[in-house]
């Protein structure tokens, strides 16, 4: 199976790899995994007082499509409000990266990761 150029680009030059300080109150974390392929994805967002995502970081253990999906999502969420970021659909990710049907679950994982991070933020900040 051939990867699209966009997947290869994100895989070879992943954006925003890493982690924020755990005790930073403006940081929220989403952890998700895919049992079928054993992929593990961590996505963190840093939210400012206006409720805008200022920065995002990720760490993914998985295939090229999973890494590319999470890398792309960290780029997309920057500058978005939490509600806007929650609107990101896996189909948008899959379309942008031209993922083949067998790799759609990677984009689902990335959507679930950002949703989990937003839920974590809302839970911590009681909104």
């Amino acid at each position, binding site marked *: 199976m051939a990867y699209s150029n966009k997947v290869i680009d994100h895989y070879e030059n992943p954006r925003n790899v890493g982690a924020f300080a755990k005790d930073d109150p403006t940081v929220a974390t989403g*952890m998700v995994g895919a*049992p079928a*392929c054993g992929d593990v994805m961590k996505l963190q967002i840093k939210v400012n007082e206006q409720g805008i995502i200022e920065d995002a970081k990720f*760490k993914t253990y998985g295939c090229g499509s999973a890494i590319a999906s999470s890398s792309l999502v960290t780029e997309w969420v920057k500058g978005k409000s939490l509600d806007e970021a929650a609107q990101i659909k896996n189909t948008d990710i899959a379309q942008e990266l031209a993922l083949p049907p067998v790799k759609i679950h990677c984009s689902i*994982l990335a959507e679930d990761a950002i949703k*989990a991070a937003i839920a974590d933020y809302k839970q911590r900040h009681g909104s």
Partner: protein
Amino acid sequence: MNYYQLFQLPAQFDVDLTELGTRYLALQKQFHPDNFASASERDRLLAVQQAANINDGYHSLKQPLLRAEHLLALRGVKISAEQRSFTDTVFLLQQMELRELLAEIADAPDPDTLIDDAERQIRLQKKQLLATLSAALGHDTHEQDLAAADIIRKLKFFFKLEQELEFIAQQTQD
């Protein structure tokens, strides 16, 4: 298809693998194409189909995870094709740490010690999860079946870790 029925074994998680092997060979012999050389086209096709079922069933019952999935499917809990993300944060954080541990092995001065350590950790946790899985499936209640499904999902991550470790061990030997 109920593979337990096919092999005439009790529908439970713990399976006598010797018995399974014996019945597999007997069934294979019974449905061997040679026995149907002069049979009608329809019977020949049925025999081919049955031989395929026997092979699939043998592989499903031999491997603990596939067997557990098959048993759960028979009880109405289907997880083999699910695409739902797993969200147990504590478990996933631990997986992340184990993955990080594996990633460090390649650059370590003494990879063999680290590989042994990782292998031991993974094997121990897998063993514990398999014991819990066996206990949960033994209850045969819907609630415990759902718990078993969750244990299977966790075990899949450990099987993936094992594969990764094997790959790393091979690479460090080159």
